[in-house]
């Protein structure tokens, strides 16, 4: 899954996969009932970096590693980001409610998720690599420090209903349980050195700092007396002792005509209230550093500029509860279908009016809230039914990670077994290390339809 960006452009509206309900609870998915194979129904991993690839840093090509780091820093900006996301569906299922004529469905599930997003802290990297000597007059921006990380579990129940032949509406409520969270996304301040005037010391040096790192579920692991197993404790906290939150998804599908469809969804409108093992570190204040300056005034106690500095910008530890908002995602799509299926012709199971189309083309737009600018991705897609129950979807996506991201997804049903495998950035798979982002997802479900 394209996960921190969580643009699941291949899965979106790929309605032969029940998990497509997770990106649009109003997707036109129908079943008598289904359940995912525990641990296998939804596995995904995703990595992305908008300005450099793993190869840029770690290629075994004889170039000095420090030169590679410098190149990466030079070509990155503080809007470039590195993210990774992993999801594992633990259980999922759904069933139709009411009789055979009913078109109302319940779906539910639980999954574990890991998110990490960091913007390139460009100015801090320059300061660490070069120092300030060659940057007199430059203000190093502390706001470049911007990251968030979370391990959480999500439990959800959704409902969707075909209101009539034209409209499907759906919604889902979610309970979040966050096992560990680190959040440092509202930093500001600067470190500034310029030449002093003749009535000042050699330099005019000023630091203004407004740094804050909020954590929950992490502080205990950093203490000297901690002697547990971090992995085990993290898993336990994620499922049984997490900071809790609530959210919802909503979506719809609307058919202008039988072969012209519009969909829209909003996902993860929700928050987590961090209450467990909370610790917030702050460095807030400002200081002008003139040097160690004697007053030649015997009445004064000796001063200590370093103590003054620490008093001006103290390290404080707070234990306040805090709230984080889940990254909300908005999807919309238009799809046009054509070419009546020949697979139905030798089958008398469907009346002519319900025959499937072979081809579909369309466009999708994805946006997601992020600490800086929102993430926006535009996708054009083509879906082709290879067999009656084997569907292929290819996508071409333009976003801040790539302008040539081609995705490929395949979903098939054999008997009751529904399998899917989706990968994106297939052009880069010739050498995965050179890609700026990569994602895959796969899963296996049992799906029961009426005719089964």
């Amino acid at each position, binding site marked *: 899954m394209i996960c921190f960006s969580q643009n699941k452009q291949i899965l979106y509206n790929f309605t032969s996969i029940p998990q497509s309900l997770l990106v649009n609870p109003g997707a036109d998915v129908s079943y008598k009932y289904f359940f995912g194979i525990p641990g296998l129904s939804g596995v995904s991993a995703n990595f992305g970096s908008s300005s450099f690839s793993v190869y840029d840093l770690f290629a*075994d090509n004889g170039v000095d590693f420090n030169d590679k780091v410098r190149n990466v820093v030079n070509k990155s900006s503080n809007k470039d980001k590195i993210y990774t996301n992993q999801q594992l569906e633990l259980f999922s299922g759904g069933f139709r409610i009411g009789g055979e004529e009913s078109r109302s469905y319940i779906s539910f599930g639980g999954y574990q998720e890991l998110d990490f997003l960091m913007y390139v802290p460009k100015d801090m990297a320059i300061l660490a690599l070069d120092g300030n000597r060659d940057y007199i007059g430059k203000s190093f921006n502390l706001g470049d420090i911007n990251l968030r990380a979370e391990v959480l579990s999500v439990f959800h129940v959704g409902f969707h209903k075909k209101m009539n032949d034209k409209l499907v509406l759906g919604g889902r409520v979610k309970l979040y349980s966050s096992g560990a969270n680190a959040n440092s996304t509202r930093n500001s301040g600067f470190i500034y050195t310029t030449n002093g005037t003749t009535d000042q010391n050699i330099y005019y040096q000023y630091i203004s700092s407004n740094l804050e790192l909020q954590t929950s579920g992490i502080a205990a692991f950093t203490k000297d007396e901690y002697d547990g197993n971090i992995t085990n404790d993290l898993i336990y906290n994620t499922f049984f002792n997490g900071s809790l939150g609530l959210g919802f998804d909503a979506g719809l599908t609307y058919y202008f005509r039988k072969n012209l469809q519009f969909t829209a969804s909003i996902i993860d409108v929700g928050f987590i209230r961090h209450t467990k093992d909370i610790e917030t570190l702050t460095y807030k204040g400002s200081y002008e550093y*003139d040097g160690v*300056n004697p007053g030649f005034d015997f009445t004064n106690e000796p001063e200590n*500029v370093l103590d003054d500095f620490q008093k001006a910008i103290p390290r404080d530890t707070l234990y306040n509860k805090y709230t984080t908002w889940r990254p909300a995602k908005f999807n919309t799509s238009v799809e046009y279908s054509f070419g009546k299926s020949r697979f139905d012709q030798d089958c008398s199971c469907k009346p002519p009016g319900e025959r499937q189309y072979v081809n579909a083309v369309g466009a999708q737009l994805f946006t997601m809230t992020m600490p800086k600018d929102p993430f926006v991705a535009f996708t054009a897609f083509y879906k082709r039914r290879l067999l009656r129950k084997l569907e292929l979807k290819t996508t071409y996506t333009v976003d801040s990670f790539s302008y040539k991201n081609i995705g490929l997804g395949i979903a098939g049903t054999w008997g009751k077994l529904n399998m899917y495998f989706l990968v994106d950035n297939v052009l880069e798979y*010739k050498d995965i290390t050179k890609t700026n982002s990569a994602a895959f997802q796969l899963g296996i479900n049992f799906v029961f339809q009426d005719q089964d």
Partner: protein
Amino acid sequence: MKPAGMSKFTTLLVFVFLSFSCSGDLDFDQIDDLKLEPVVVANLTYFNIPAKDFVDNGNEQSIAFDAQDFNPFRNSLMREELIKAEFNFEIRNTVNRAYKIDLVLIDSQNNTIETLSFNVPAYAGTNNVLNFTEVFENQRLVKLKRLQKIGFVINMAAGPPLTENSPGSLKLRSAGTLNFDIEAED
């Protein structure tokens, strides 16, 4: 039809998974080669003493003294990763008297590590800016890392008497240039 579809699907899956293994040669151990070599400039010390401050109730004070706590090496980065420090001093004397400025570097036992002395000639109406540079490396740097305090001693040499209205001042501006060598594998 079903078995054929299944095998096509399986072939595709295998193909895609095989594609994963096709990656360029990477060497993650390179991270051990990471070496940061920042060069940081920072103010060191500054004073500007007007000529009249060397006169107290009509009597010349030919010695001025002060001491300031200064222990930058309590910071482990400064203690362990600093490989060179260069101090640059700029002294501008516009008083018609000569001076000797001593910066006494003192350790935690109140022992003198080293004294930096600067002789400043009397102002004679022409531009009188002096620049001094002190470089601390190797053993000299090792000793400097004991620094806890700086003593400032100004001795005024004999010359034409100063009064409360004498013009000029003795100004010192200074900064350090610090070279670090921070290696991932230490």
